[in-house]
């Protein structure tokens, strides 16, 4: 959530093909979300990527 103090949601991804990963997240509320992707490479290096998901609305 873009607002501090709000509950984050967590999810894991699994490999479905070489270099392709799939997972699901259930956003707990409408609003602007930011997905943080934490990656650990085989050699132990760590990466972090940030993807904005603005304007999530309720079903």
């Amino acid at each position, binding site marked *: *959530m873009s*607002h501090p*103090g*709000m509950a984050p949601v*967590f999810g894991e991804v699994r490999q479905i093909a070489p270099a392709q990963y799939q997972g699901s997240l259930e956003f707990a*509320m409408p609003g*602007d979300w930011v997905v943080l992707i934490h990656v650990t490479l085989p050699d132990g290096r760590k990466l972090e990527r940030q993807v904005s998901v*603005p*304007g999530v609305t309720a079903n």
Partner: protein
Amino acid sequence: MQVPGLRRLFRWRHLRTVLQIPLLIVSAAMILDGLLGPSLAPKNLATTLSWVHFRGALVLVLLCAGNFFCLACPFMLVRNVARRFFRPRLNWPQKLRNKWLSLGLFALILFCYEEFSLWSSPWWTAWLIVGYFLTVLVVDGVFKHASFCKFVCPIGQFNFVASTISPLEVKVRDLDVCELCRTKDCIRGRRAPGSGLVVIQRGCELALFQPLKVGNMDCTFCLDCVHACPHDNIGISSRMPASELMVDPRRSGIGRFSQRTDVAALAIVFSFGALLNAFGMVSPVYALESWLAGMMHVNSKAPALGVLFALFLVLEPAVLMGLAARLTQLLGGSQRALVPLAVRYTYGLVPLGFGMWLAHYSFHFLTGLYTVLPVTQSAASRVGWNWFGAPRWTLLGIPMRYVQPLEIGFLVLGLAGSLLVIHQLAESDCAERPLRAFVPWAAVSVVLWMAAMWMMFQPMDMRGTFLAG
């Protein structure tokens, strides 16, 4: 303060500075992290501390004690240090000696909060804090006394209005002692022995003469009067919350509430702004903003938001208060003119407004209570202090199922307080038919309370991009 230990503590001359120094350090950390730290708000000290912890702690301290955040204000510490090097020469302009400027700034901050989605921007939040420090230095660098606190500071005005509900106030212990007092140091300041000019302890900078001071309005709890009084006759006392809203005496430094249209307007922005600020975080606001933007054929947020603010902070209060005042004239037989009547009863809405601020801010504070830990750990690790360990981002706060009943309790408490104040005003206004004067204003309170309750059960929606979908 009659509690052993606390009396000595509050009489300690350096108490304020000791409270201000940690807050100044925290402010500096917030500015640095806001400008140089992560851009994601939940990971940044500036946004987390400003919009979750500071606001929540502020309203809870106001509810349980008093205006202690003004006492510990870090801006005043910087100002006091600056005043060692330059002395202000001018008095605050006569035409600006009212609340219009500060209530305009208060409304502007509420507007900017929505327009720039301040909660999601560490950078803007940091600049807001920097802007505050600079404004304090400029205003109090040019103008004498506590001009910034009394006539400019929007946070201070919020605290002044909210502290009318607080259970503690700074007041005289024994008025008979004041009648015999020759020096009036509480307002003039204590002079050095043998010198009529050198002030060794300043008196009240906000022009509140203690023997005639009523309640907490305009009182920053700075305790200058406590330290200046040569008779140890001023202290922090308990009282019935909101009792100062039920009476209308001439107040030192303020006058009568019923004759202060600007203070009443501040109370309106405080009360209706509470609902507007909470409305900004639920889903229906985006549908309304999108509809307004469509009606106006605009693609930017500001015009729709401007209309929303005009509706909630001007039109809605004008219609509701105007109707209630007219009905009070017709039913209660009040002899007052329409505007003075509306001004008088406006203060009755303050407890309800405070209940709404409490419900809103304590929700964020309590549900995000522990988020300060991983955010601080993360900030510390960025400057190489890793002794706090790895941040645990799963730390949150008190579960919503416990917080929501508390929110409802705050709103019910706010409504009860408003009804009590309005009833007292109606009794002193229309002694023969108090119920008839009470009913229109009670109806306004109930309507606002129902709107607040409706908002509490709306799905939360924190978006800065309502036009995106």
